[in-house]
């Protein structure tokens, strides 16, 4: 199983979750929410959708906790769920809205009380949108996994269920698309 970067957690926590221990589930969410959100930023079509993907990913993980295979890492298992969840959300016409209302999420939003952090966040989101939103989903995903998260193309292929050659092709296309605007400033650049 591919070693997806993420926090490590004792598998006994998953056993406790399966037996209905709410505090164990809270522990899992606290540990993995940042990395799942990080994945969701590239798996979702829009960074604004990422919060919803995170929420549903944990909901699906909770429901399918018995299916966790101990031979793999929790991070890889959650990545697969996040990926599937993002895909389902795209396909479902009538989306089930997130269980936390946007208002309640905003009430906990530290960025409302810290203008500096809010500006930084908006700047970061803008950069993410600018760089990734125009890319097809598969290109975006492999670019993030390989170039930004440091997986090898083979690991990314295993994680996404694609052929290694397809991953490489998507990777090259993604790089070219992301860099084309910069490279076009070169006088000899010919797209």
């Amino acid at each position, binding site marked *: 199983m591919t070693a997806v970067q993420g926090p490590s957690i004792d598998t006994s926590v998953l056993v406790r979750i399966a037996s209905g221990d709410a505090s164990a589930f809270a522990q899992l969410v606290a540990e993995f929410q940042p990395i799942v959100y990080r994945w969701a930023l590239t798996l979702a079509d829009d960074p604004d959708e990422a919060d919803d993907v995170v929420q549903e990913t944990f*909901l699906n993980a909770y429901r399918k906790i018995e299916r966790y295979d101990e031979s793999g890492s929790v991070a890889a298992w959650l990545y697969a769920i996040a990926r599937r969840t993002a895909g389902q959300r795209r396909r479902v016409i009538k989306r089930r809205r997130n269980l936390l209302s946007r208002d309640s999420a905003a009430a906990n939003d530290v960025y409302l009380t810290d203008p500096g952090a809010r500006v930084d966040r908006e700047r970061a989101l803008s950069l993410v949108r600018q760089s990734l939103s125009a890319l097809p989903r598969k290109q975006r995903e492999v670019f993030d996994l390989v170039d930004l998260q440091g997986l090898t193309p083979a690991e990314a292929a295993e994680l996404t269920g694609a052929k290694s050659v397809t991953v490489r092709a998507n990777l090259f296309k993604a790089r070219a698309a992301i860099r084309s605007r910069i490279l076009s400033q070169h006088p000899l650049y010919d797209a």
Partner: protein
Amino acid sequence: MPESITCEQSLKALATLSAAEIQSSRLIAQHTQTCSDCSRVASVVLERERSLGLALDSLSPRADPARIADTVSLAAERHATARFIKWLLVGAMGATAWFALDSTIGDHERKVAALRTETFPLKCLSPQQAEGLIEPYIRADGHGIYFTNGVAAVTVRALPSELAQAKRLIDDAQLRSAMESGSCGSPTLAPAKP
């Protein structure tokens, strides 16, 4: 292995190699030392991707994890309840359908299965006479009254109670006929039904 690369080769490499490969490439490094245009775009490419990685890493989720955990637990409970109710409704629908089918098809099947067949020998009645006598009483679904030309008997397929009634009617009629004529010879046999 080429000693140096051109701007076109440099641009091609900058478009497809990873940031790490660009940084470690000796040929690109040599070229960018002498070409300010390539040097500039290479720097921007690397800086842009480094910024993008940092931006993605810096973005933290807005929702409170404890709240997510609570909400997910609640949603999972609701989902389990909804699933239980769904199965309950499916079960109820199945039971209703089973009873409905049983009260129509099953009832018919049971009635047909209860039918019995019996042959009554005739001494003073013809099969046609016997048929005319018992036919109004043989009403069950799937009933039948059969006779063959030249055979002084009638075969009846009906419910046991109907067979008993038919037997009684035939016996009474034959007894009456015997008393009136003294004895019964072979009954007049009419031609069989077409």
